[in-house]
């Protein structure tokens, strides 16, 4: 390819400007607004009972969703890559569904399914509250994060092939031993990325969760709901910025932890 220096520089500048304007500026803006009045004000704002409750609820949802997605994701990826069964193509398509469906639609359909009068609405009479309760938020979050682990683990499984597992079998390892000692460690990179994406998405999910949450401050608000209600309902712009920064902070910590963890595991 022959590109003149001028046009190359122009393209680079354009691409950089695009990234700065659309990604960097908004994030920096929030950080600046948050810490403008000093770190004390930020600390104050995220130590209110509503903020603490929102953070705990968000982390609780993550703590429930991640293990479920790991188990389901790894199993599904194994079935899709290694198995040959009828309806494989159908399952491939279903796994991608959350990418295509808007989270709000997910929320609405969950209400229709689990709410009073819905197909599974009967569980509410048994004292198990799904919609406007924690289970609803968990189900909504699982729905939107479902593809991440599957899609990250699948290519890794294809790449590692089956020879290492066959070798383990000839050396006497049972199916479970092979899975724990060979397959799982071999797919750890894919799994790690899948988990990071799942956590990031769980932290940030708003559309589906807002539909199925009763949205009471201090009780059923996640961090994203808190940001929204502070900004819209309470007209507390600064509080919204602070909560948003906390949310970003959690995501960054996740990313750092995963990177450190994996570096440690791959060098020992």
């Amino acid at each position, binding site marked *: 390819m022959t590109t003149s220096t001028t046009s190359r520089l122009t393209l680079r500048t354009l691409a950089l400007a695009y990234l700065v304007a659309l990604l960097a500026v908004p994030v920096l803006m929030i950080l600046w607004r948050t810490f403008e009045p000093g770190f004390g004000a930020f600390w104050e704002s995220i130590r209110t009972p509503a903020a603490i409750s929102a953070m705990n609820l968000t982390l609780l949802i993550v703590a429930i969703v991640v293990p479920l997605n790991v188990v389901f994701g790894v199993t599904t990826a194994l079935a899709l890559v290694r198995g040959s069964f009828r309806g494989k193509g159908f399952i491939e398509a279903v796994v991608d569904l959350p990418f295509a469906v808007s989270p709000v639609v997910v929320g609405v359909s969950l209400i229709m399914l689990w709410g009073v009068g819905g197909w599974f609405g009967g569980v509410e009479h048994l004292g198990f509250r799904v919609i406007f309760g924690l289970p609803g938020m968990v189900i909504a979050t699982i729905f939107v994060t479902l593809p991440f682990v599957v899609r990250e683990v699948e290519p890794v499984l294809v790449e590692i092939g089956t020879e290492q597992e066959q070798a383990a079998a000839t*050396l006497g390892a049972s199916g479970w031993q092979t899975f724990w000692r060979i397959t799982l460690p071999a797919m750890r990179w894919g799994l790690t990325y899948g988990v990071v994406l799942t956590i990031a998405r769980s932290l940030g999910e708003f559309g589906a969760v807002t539909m199925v949450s009763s949205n009471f401050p201090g009780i059923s608000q996640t961090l994203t709901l808190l940001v929204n209600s502070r900004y819209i309902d309470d007209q507390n712009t600064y509080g919204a910025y602070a909560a948003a920064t906390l949310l970003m902070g959690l995501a960054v910590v996740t990313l750092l932890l995963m990177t450190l963890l994996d570096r440690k595991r791959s060098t020992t």
Partner: protein
Amino acid sequence: MITVTGARKDFGTFRALDDVSIEIPSGTLTALLGPSGSGKSTLLRSIAGLESLDAGTVVIAGRDVTRVPPQQRGIGFVFQHYAAFKHMTVRDNVAFGLTIRRRPKAEVRAKVDELLEVVGLEGFQHRYPAQLSGGQRQRMALARALAVDPEVLLLDEPFGALDAKVRADLRRWLRRLHDEVHVTTVLVTHDQEEALDVADTIAVLNRGRIEQIGDPDTLYDAPDNQFVMSFLGSVSSVGGTLVRPHDIVLERPAPDDTRANGPGRVLATIERVVRLGFEVRVELRDADGERFAAEVTRGVAQQLGLVAGEQVWAVAPSHAVRDLPQPPDAGVPADAAEADEVASTAGVGEPARA
């Protein structure tokens, strides 16, 4: 001792093994030799239990293991592409089978140290497979397979992924190792030189059948059919008669020569004379345009004064000519090579067949 009786295996419409029976005596090194799609890898993987037979039985050391999973067959298996456990050190790789069996730590350590020395990888125990060369990885894989004291050692094209020099070194090393360890060994290869170099016994496979089993000399000197003869060593056709190139006798035509061409005797034009060290290869073309080669010593070549463009009689002496049958239903189906490829690389984007 391994005994396979009446083994049959189909992959879809492709028959990889067609009523194969073979007996491999204890302590020997046997090579399964054949072209792509001949079923040699499938036979080896069936002995290991990595493929299940559609018909027939496998008996290892007196025990019928036909329905026994690979874990309990008492085998060691070495793969063409090493199948190294990439996330484990060399030491952990070699120790894997012993760790699985929950042997005491001291015993594992001693055994691994001993094996690392046998395969020449002392000092590499803390490396990862990615930090080893191909030859080193394969030696690690061998140590790993030997660690569990297998009844039989099965090697699937173990040197196929290595370059020529390393391959030659490693197979001689394997032969010496076998002479020390004496474990019954079966080696799959498509390289006749490799089979002749290392094996006590060679089984030649073609299209899912065993064409002939015997020691290297027998197969080379007394092949049962044309396939075995042409697959093991080079072959020339002198007027339709198959003969080894070094058995061909060249004669200068006499000035008043009136003899006619016949089976095993043709008047041919010398196209090229190639000196290969001690030997001379003479490339010839007969009146029908058929090309073939003869190999003579340098002395003979000088004595006859062989020069390109001249004519010589090429004679297949009767003692060297064998009237060999075609193998049953000769000719390799076009899809055979592909099927073998798939079988040996199963797992990458393909449903596994194990």
